[in-house]
């Protein structure tokens, strides 16, 4: 049974539709990515899952609970990291974690969380004196202090420097190893590609694809590029008849083959059968970003 089920979610603010029609389900123990550019409806979608907003249509179930009706029960099993929320300026890091730990029936040890998130030295530092990255890490630690079954993290690495971002990714994988199902809202391709088991790509309030990162990339019919110099001349048709190949181009002695699927094996074995050796063979794998652009027509950087 899926941990989260979203079925035809619809949400509008006054006359503006934020989420048209979003459906997906999240399985236990996976890291599920919600990927889209800013304003695509990602945050509205997860806020409906969290019960912070009430949907105008469709249904949502989280661990068998209805976020609208079973708000109190849901709060105890859900860890939420909000995109923009602060703490009182003068509240200290250790106090904040102790405070939030007290809200939950069986919290984690705040001291261990401080260690894990690299905040132990900042225990007595006021929130107002933390750097952006430290605030972000505290916010993640607060989302986890309740020992949740599901953690929903919204743009968790925004504001972190590259090293801190990698550390955060490491920790998310650690959370998953602890048995927590993670929903990760992001517009960073690298993050989604590195962390997520499956990704829902959301664009203009609709889900336009759900797949593994590799699946999304493989779905590109001409995403891969193979470049080589043939040892002997050959006819383009030798390659263009292959189902994996989308196009063949020649630039002087160079051949560039575009295609999808297992392009490398298909091309090299076919060439071998025609006694052609591919010299200086290079394969350019498409990235998730290429897949995203192909799906939505634009990149996340607007």
């Amino acid at each position, binding site marked *: 049974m899926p941990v989260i089920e979203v079925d035809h979610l619809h949400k509008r603010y006054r006359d503006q539709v934020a989420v048209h029609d979003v459906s997906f389900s999240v399985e236990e123990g996976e890291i599920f990515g919600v990927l889209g550019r800013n304003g695509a409806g990602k945050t509205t979608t997860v806020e409906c899952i969290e019960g*912070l907003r009430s949907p105008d249509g469709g249904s949502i179930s989280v661990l068998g609970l209805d976020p609208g009706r079973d708000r109190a029960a849901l709060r*105890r099993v859900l860890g939420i990291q909000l995109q923009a*929320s602060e703490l009182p300026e003068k509240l200290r890091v250790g106090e904040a974690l102790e*405070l939030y730990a007290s809200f939950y029936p*069986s919290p*984690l040890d705040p001291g261990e969380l401080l260690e894990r998130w690299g905040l132990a030295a900042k225990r007595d530092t006021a929130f107002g004196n933390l750097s952006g990255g430290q605030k972000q890490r505290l916010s993640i630690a607060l989302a986890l202090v309740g020992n949740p079954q599901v953690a929903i993290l919204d743009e968790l690495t925004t504001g972190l420097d590259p090293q801190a971002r990698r550390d955060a990714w490491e920790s998310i994988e650690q959370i998953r190893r602890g048995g927590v199902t993670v929903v990760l809202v992001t517009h960073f391709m690298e993050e989604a590609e590195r962390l997520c088991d499956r990704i829902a790509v959301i664009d203009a309030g609709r889900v336009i694809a759900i797949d593994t990162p590799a699946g999304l990339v493989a779905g590109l019919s001409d995403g891969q590029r193979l470049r080589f110099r043939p040892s002997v001349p050959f006819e383009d048709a030798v390659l263009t008849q292959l189902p994996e190949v989308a196009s063949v181009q020649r630039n002087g002695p160079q051949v560039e083959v575009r295609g999808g699927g297992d392009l490398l094996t298909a091309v090299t074995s076919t060439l071998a059968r025609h006694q052609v050796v591919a010299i200086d063979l290079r394969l350019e794998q498409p990235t998730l970003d290429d897949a995203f652009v192909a799906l939505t027509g634009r990149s996340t950087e607007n």
Partner: protein
Amino acid sequence: MTETTTATPTPTPQHRAPRPLRALALAETRLFLRDPMTLLIAVVLPTVVLAALGAVPALREPSEMFGGLRFTDYFAPSLLAINIAVLGLQNLPTGLATYREKGILRRLSASPMHPAAVLVVQLLINVVTVVIGTALMLVVAVYVLDVPAPRHPVAFALTFLLGTSAVFALGLVIAAVTPRARLATGIGAVAFMLTQFFAGVYLPKFLLPEALVRIGEFVPPGVGAFQAAWMGDGPAPVHLVVMAVIAVAATTVAARFFRWE
């Protein structure tokens, strides 16, 4: 439902946490105590002003201008308005509006703790501080400056209760209708100055036109009633009723318009 319970991961070493509401009250009290300016103005200032005035010999002589009272006796009830209004119209609404603007209320609503709890806790902290500040001033006035003890203690307590409630309810309205903390601070400051003016803190009441003094008796916290309960023949019921009506009406408006985000 049963399936979700079986899906619960075996708990990792558990942490014994204090009770949620107590922890919240403790944290908020700590934060309140970390703001020494508020404490200074709200608790100590009125008492210091009264003591300073009491140190001037001329102000310790009874005068016809003050209805046969000494200036300290005459002015003490006005000073009570300072701490009530600083806490009710400035500290409370600014604090709540800041919590809303910074998403602190929203963060709470994402946890099992309802954000209303923090509102109640802040309200209580400010009320307790008003009580402490008022008690401090009464003690210093009566035991150090020889100001007579309130002649109608029960009526005085009732006046204090209703006047403070009216001011705090107005503070909640400010917190409810201002989208930004800065605006809450601004409106709170204007409201504070109005209450102080009508309470005769800026200009003692014998310098104010009679009409303003009469109006001032209906401006929370209702210093006229404080004066009557302390030195005079007891507060006029109409003044108390008006404070009660303001308290109830303003609380209703605040509850109607308050937004958590």
